[in-house]
C-alpha cells in the first residue's frame, strides 16, 4: 500500500496509494510499518488481558487451573479406559498429558483468539491504516503470556510426584531441555500462521469460529497428547507428520517425558509446519487484508 517512502521519522512523510496489481503489497514497507508498531501489539495483548481480569491474581490462577483440571479429567479418562497400569506409568501418563495439553492450549489460544482479532478489531480497522497482521500477532503474544506460567506448574507437579513415585521414568534435569525454547518458538510460529489463516476466513465466513471449536477438539485427539507418539507403529506414524502440531508435540514428549533430544525427522517436521503455516497463512492474510475495511 504505502509506496516510495521518504524520511520515515514519524510516519512516512510522502505516501502514495495506488491500485495493487500484485496480490501482495510491497513487503519491505509492510514489515517496516509492522515492526515500527510492535509496541501496539504488545500493549493490545496486555490491555486485552486486563479487560478480562487476567492480570488479577485469580485471573492468573484460573489460566493455570483450567488446563490443569482438564488434564486431570483426561488423565482419569485415559487410565480408566486403558485399565490400571503400574503406578510408575501413572505419573508418566499424567506428565505427558499435562505438558501436551499446556502446549496444545498455547497453539489453540493463538488460533482461536487470533481468528476473532480482525472481526473484533473492526472499529480500529475502519479508522486507521496499519498492517492488520498486528492484530493476530497481538493474540499470539497474549497466548504466549498465558502459556508461560503453566511451565512452573508442570515442574511443580513433577517434582512433587517424584517424591511419591521415586521409580518413575519421568526424567530429572537433562540437556535435552535446551530444546524447549525451540519447541515453544515453533508452536508459536505455527499458531500465529494458522491464526492469520483463520482470521482471514472469519472475515468472509463469520461462523468460522464455531467450526474451529469442533476442529480443535478433534485435533486434540489426533495429536500425541492423550496417547504417546511411541504407541504408533509402521505407517501409522504418518499421523504425526500430517498434523501441523504433530512433530512439535512429539518433540515435546521426547524432551519432557523421555528425556532425550528429538530426532532429526521430528525437528525437520516441526520446521516444515511452522514455515508452511507462516507462509501460507501470511500470504492468505496479507493478500486480502486491504479488503477487510469493506467487509467488516
Amino acid at each position, binding site marked *: 500500500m504505502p509506496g516510495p517512502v521518504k524520511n520515515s521519522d*514519524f510516519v512516512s512523510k510522502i505516501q502514495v496509494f495506488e491500485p495493487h496489481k500484485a496480490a501482495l503489497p510491497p513487503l519491505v514497507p509492510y514489515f517496516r510499518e509492522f515492526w515500527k508498531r510492535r509496541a501496539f501489539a504488545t500493549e493490545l495483548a496486555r490491555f486485552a488481558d486486563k479487560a478480562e481480569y487476567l492480570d488479577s491474581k485469580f485471573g492468573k490462577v484460573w489460566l493455570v487451573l483450567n488446563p490443569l483440571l482438564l488434564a486431570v479429567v483426561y488423565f482419569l479418562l485415559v487410565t480408566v479406559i486403558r485399565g490400571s497400569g503400574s503406578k510408575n506409568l501413572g505419573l508418566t501418563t499424567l506428565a505427558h498429558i499435562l505438558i501436551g495439553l499446556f502446549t496444545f492450549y498455547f497453539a489453540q489460544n493463538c488460533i482461536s483468539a487470533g481468528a476473532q482479532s480482525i472481526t473484533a478489531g473492526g472499529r480500529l480497522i475502519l479508522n486507521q491504516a496499519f498492517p492488520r497482521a498486528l492484530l493476530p500477532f497481538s493474540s499470539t503474544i497474549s497466548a504466549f503470556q498465558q502459556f508461560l506460567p503453566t511451565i512452573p506448574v508442570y515442574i511443580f507437579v513433577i517434582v512433587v510426584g517424584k517424591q511419591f513415585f521415586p521409580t518413575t521414568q519421568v526424567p530429572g534435569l537433562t540437556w535435552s531441555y535446551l530444546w524447549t525454547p525451540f519447541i515453544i518458538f515453533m508452536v508459536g510460529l505455527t499458531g500465529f500462521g494458522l491464526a492469520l489463516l483463520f482470521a482471514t476466513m472469519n472475515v468472509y465466513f463469520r461462523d468460522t469460529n464455531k467450526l474451529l471449536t469442533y476442529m480443535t477438539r478433534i485435533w486434540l485427539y489426533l495429536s500425541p497428547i492423550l496417547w504417546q507418539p511411541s504407541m504408533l507403529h509402521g505407517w501409522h506414524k504418518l499421523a504425526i507428520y500430517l498434523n501441523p502440531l504433530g512433530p512439535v508435540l512429539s518433540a515435546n514428549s521426547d524432551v519432557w517425558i523421555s528425556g532425550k533430544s528429538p530426532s532429526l525427522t521430528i525437528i525437520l517436521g516441526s520446521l516444515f509446519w511452522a514455515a508452511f503455516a507462516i507462509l501460507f497463512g501470511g500470504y492468505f492474510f496479507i493478500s486480502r487484508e486491504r479488503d477487510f475495511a469493506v467487509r467488516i
Partner: protein
Amino acid sequence: MPEELAVRIEDLSIKYKINVDTKRTLKNAVMRASKGERVRTRVVEAVKHLTLDVPHGSVLGIVGANGAGKSTLMRSIAGILPPTEGRIIVNGKISTLLALGVGFNPALSGRDNIILGGLASGMTREEIEAKTEEISDFAALPDGFIDMPVRTYSSGMYGRVAFSVAVNMTPDILLLDEALSAGDASFKEKSFNRMRELCKEARTIVIVSHALATINELCDSAIWLHKGSMLAKGKPDAIVDQYLKFLDVGALPSNFEDM
C-alpha cells in the same frame, strides 16, 4: 508533486464488491452451493474518476447525500482503502476520525484507548504518553471518567475523547468524518477554535459533514460529491447553495440548524 500540496488525487476510482446475502457464514455457503446457487454480489462504484488537489493549510469541506462516496474517499486518503484506479499522493502525517466507533475497545478505559490508538498510528510509547494528558485535558471529561471503561461513557463523552485524540496528534492532515456532532455547544466552540489553530499552523483539514453551517464556517473551499462524482467545486457558500438547491429544499433554516 508540487511542494504546496498536502493531498493530490489523480483520476481516482474506487470499486468494491459487497455481498448481497445477509448472513455470511460457512454453513450458508455450503447450503447455497448444494442448491447450486451462486453468491450474490454487487459491485459498488463509490468514487468515479475524481481529480482533486488539496493545498497545505486549507480546509476542504465535502458535502453530498448519503451514499455519495464521501466516507470511501476519506478512507482512501487515509490509506485504509486502496484505489481501484488512479492514485493518491499524501504529503504529511495523517490523523483520522472516520468511523463513529473510532477504534475504541469498550472494555478498556479512555486512557488505554488513547494509548492504543497512538501506538497503532505509529507513535512511540513515550510520544503518546506525553500526549495523553493533553488529550484528556482537551476532552475535559467529568471527574475520573478518563480511567473508566469506555462502555460507561455517554455518547457525548465518547465523541469528545475521539475528537480530542484526532486533533491533538499534531497531524499534518486531519480527516474528520461527521465528527463534529459530538459534544455540547461549549465543546463545539472549543473544537472549532482548535481547528482554526491547526489551520494557522498550515495544517490541512478535510471535513465531511451534513451540518452545512459547519462547512460554511470552517472551510475555505468545498466540493460536492454525488454518486461518486464531483459535481461542483468552489467557495463553500456557493457549493452549499447549489447542494441545497439540488436537494430541492431551498435554503431552509433547518438545514443550517447544525447537527
